[in-house]
């Protein structure tokens, strides 16, 4: 049987780009949330957590409205970068980044919040600047939180369905990721392929989760962290 792996490759490409992007913006943003005493903190936290509680169809609908070529954002993307943000891969990246945002931010923020502030001050008093302190002291000491954030974000992006279907459509080779492909096979009554694809996704999801929990279990045994 000829198994088309394109949807999986698309899924992983999407998850990789989204995870990397969210990691880069997530670290400073989560740091800000963990240290700020500003009144807008609960507002920002609610906004961040919104994708967890919102039905994917609601999020997908708003994203379609706001990213459409005649919308403000859609126009900017089209005029400046010549990029179409709906029914396209770049659109999927934008939509997935919003959808997976809380899964990256929340673990990193709680990692930052639980770190002993004295070790940060000890680093400053040792003459080290903020960046050195971040990379040599803070991040290594929240490794379990970072790993959780990265792996859960990746897995969640691979596993999303509603938003990618609405914003991406289901264009084979472009926006038809694995989860959407399964839906299409079921609709076409091709249960055999749906079975295979589903089993692959099930296995990958389990392995990913197992990796997170196993690594954290080993880390906790290795150091008595907090």
């Amino acid at each position, binding site marked *: 049987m000829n198994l088309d792996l394109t949807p999986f490759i698309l899924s992983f490409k999407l998850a990789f780009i989204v995870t990397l992007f969210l990691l880069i913006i997530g670290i400073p943003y989560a740091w800000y949330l963990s240290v700020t005493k500003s009144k807008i903190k609960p507002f920002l936290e609610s906004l961040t957590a919104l994708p967890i509680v919102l039905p994917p169809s609601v999020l997908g609908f708003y994203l379609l409205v706001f990213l459409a070529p005649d919308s403000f954002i859609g126009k900017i993307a089209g005029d400046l970068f010549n990029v179409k943000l709906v029914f396209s891969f770049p659109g999927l990246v934008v939509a997935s980044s919003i959808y997976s945002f809380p899964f990256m931010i929340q673990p990193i923020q709680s990692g930052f919040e639980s770190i002993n502030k*004295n*070790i940060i001050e000890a680093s400053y008093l*040792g*003459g080290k600047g903020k960046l050195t302190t971040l990379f040599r002291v803070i991040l290594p000491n929240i490794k379990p939180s970072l790993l959780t954030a990265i792996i859960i974000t990746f897995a969640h992006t691979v596993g999303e369905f509603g938003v990618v279907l609405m914003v991406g459509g289901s264009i084979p080779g472009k926006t038809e990721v694995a989860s959407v492909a399964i839906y299409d096979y079921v609709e076409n009554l091709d249960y055999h392929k749906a079975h295979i694809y589903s089993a692959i996704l099930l296995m990958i999801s389990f392995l990913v989760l197992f990796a997170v929990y196993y690594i954290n279990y080993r880390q906790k045994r290795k150091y008595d962290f907090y």
Partner: protein
Amino acid sequence: MIFIDIKKPLKGVKENMLLEVGLTLKKGSFLALFGASGSGKTTLLRIIAGLEKAKGQIIVDNEKWLDKNKFLPPQKREIGFMFQDFALFPNMNIIENLLYINNDKKFAEKLLSLSGLNALKNRMPHSLSGGQKQRVALCRALMRKPKLLLLDEPFSALDTKMRENLQNEIMMFHNEFKLTTIMVSHSPEEIYKLANIMIEFKHGKIIKKGSPKELLLKTSGSEKFSLIGKIIDIIKADVINIALVSIGSHIVEVVISKEEAKKLKKGFSVVLSTKAFHPNIKVLNEDTFS
């Protein structure tokens, strides 16, 4: 010479107060900051370190650390700071903790061997005892070859024997590197042993200043001989009643009358003193070490 003249409003537990400190300190001094919790001692230490901002002036060896228009960040102040909870970097082993501050391997090894920690240099902090961690923290604080060593209640997490060891070590380093040291402490015993000058704080203000000998002995000399403790049990033994009183890390037995036995209860805080020039002293343990 160290010159400090700072002001900072503080939010106290019960009421707000103004921390207001003016003092000059000679090079090589060992200053102890003494006073009740919340009187501003630790805040003063943090202001000197640059971890908190304040109004006023701090000048160390003609270098301005704090001024109207200047705030030297902690990174640029030549300070060694020892935290109450050690604050070792959990992701680095002992020697890495030292080398992170200053990549001078020879000096790190010298410090570790002076404190007898050389055998532990490749261990991770979490596998060390409290006393060992505190000694590593002391070595790490010295890695910058600081002008000023700041100690925030360095002995509070240690037992009596560890305390004594670390006190000796701090004295050794203070003399060896000709440091100026400022220590926050609750213990008159520690202060008497280590410091050559002390300041007592109350509500953010200096209320007493002088040598520990003057201040500590004067206080206890003007009052009668008395110790504060807590009753942990009252025992009836044959015809007498005995109260077990815990004082500091000791427990003493005190014979009490029938009436007193009725009045006193477990958990009461009490003052033990002498009556009519007859001190009633019972030897609890002949080991003079503790």
